[in-house]
């Protein structure tokens, strides 16, 4: 763990806590990744968290939402993250949902491909708890400008 004080877990920096519980959808086929994101964001981040195993399950859940943010992996079985975001962006009820993509892929062309389908923010794994909380807060509009 980082020895430096963590402003989020200490709770004295209310500006990066959501004002009301925001709902996140975590989409990753790896059970440990989902569990890591959940523990980083659910408590004490204050988010309500749901999980999906791949792009298809994510569409099922997103359509049953509403969600404030979707965190999605790239490599997943049956429907990958890029195909998911492309489908999301053309599905009327959910087209505008903010999407944060997290992946082990770190080449320029991977990031360009993500941008091309409509990903709002791309983070390369592994991701620290602090970064997850910070970017989730920014993406859900939980921070002061």
């Amino acid at each position, binding site marked *: 763990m980082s020895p430096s004080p963590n402003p989020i877990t200490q709770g004295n920096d209310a500006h990066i806590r959501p004002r009301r519980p925001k709902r996140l959808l975590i989409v990753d086929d790896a059970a440990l990744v989902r569990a890591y994101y959940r523990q980083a964001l659910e408590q004490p981040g204050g988010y309500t968290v*749901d999980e999906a*195993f791949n792009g*298809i399950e994510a569409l*099922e859940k997103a*359509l*049953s939402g509403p969600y404030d943010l979707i965190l999605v992996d790239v490599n997943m079985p*049956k*429907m990958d993250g890029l195909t998911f975001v492309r*489908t999301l962006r053309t599905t009327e009820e959910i087209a505008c949902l903010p999407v944060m993509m997290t992946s082990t892929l770190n080449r320029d062309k991977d990031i360009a491909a993500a941008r091309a389908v409509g990903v709002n923010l791309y983070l390369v794994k592994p991701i620290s708890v602090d970064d997850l909380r910070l970017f989730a807060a920014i993406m859900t509009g939980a921070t002061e400008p």
Partner: protein
Amino acid sequence: MAMPRTGGPSQPDAVTDEEFARFCEFIYRRTGLSYGASKRYFIDRRILERVERSGVSSVQSYLALLRFDSTGRELEEIINSLTVNETYFWREEYQFACLANSILPEVVRTKRRGEPVRIWSLPCSTGEEPYSIAMWLLENWADVDQYDVEIIASDIDTQVLAAARQGLYDARSVQRLPKWVLDRYFERPTSDRWRIVDSLRSSIEFTRINASDRAQMAKMTDIDVIFCRNMLIYFDDVSRREVADSMYSSLRPGGFVCLGHSESMSRISPLFAVRRFADAIVYQRPAR
């Protein structure tokens, strides 16, 4: 949360969070059945029942038994227990509501005059599902008189098909049906038996099909809606994908697949689009 136990003192009486997570991950990857935290109590009870019945000493040992049982028998037992493997009229009726309220109105929009609506029950077991579909549409679909509706019912098992054709049921099967439906569509040969009236029985096409046989499946064409509930969960990964691929080919463009409660196409096949209607989530062969 703990169940009352009658077994030996070494038997577990609770499922830990980690065991629950591991079990759900295994069941999802193996069967496509998906359960969230809201089903925790239900799932825990099923696991502990199977721990007791299978005679293992811990939940962890039970998970190992599930994973390494090459006969697949324990997996079948737990699936039966999770899905409450029984069939009765108007089971999971929200899907029939979805059929009448949302799916069929969309399907008939592209129908030419005189073109039938084709609905396929696969597997149909002893007939409760295809008869339920028929009765539900006759009672609840406003446009039912304007279209020819063909209901095809298939199963691999010739014995259950024979029973389905006969259409004879006991009190348990019909317990969910309102009285007026019983009066309209059933006869009472004896006080504890109900038989589907001839006109309804003879309007349904029963036919034997092995869903895993690509050639047999390929002969089913131009289907508008397939009801395929609680079958694919018993298949292995490859067989499930093959059946989904065959179903896709049997559907008309724009046609729908309805899976069982807790089942999801997400573990099975990328072929279908997800559609959310007011009553249910269903899967669609893209129209183009």
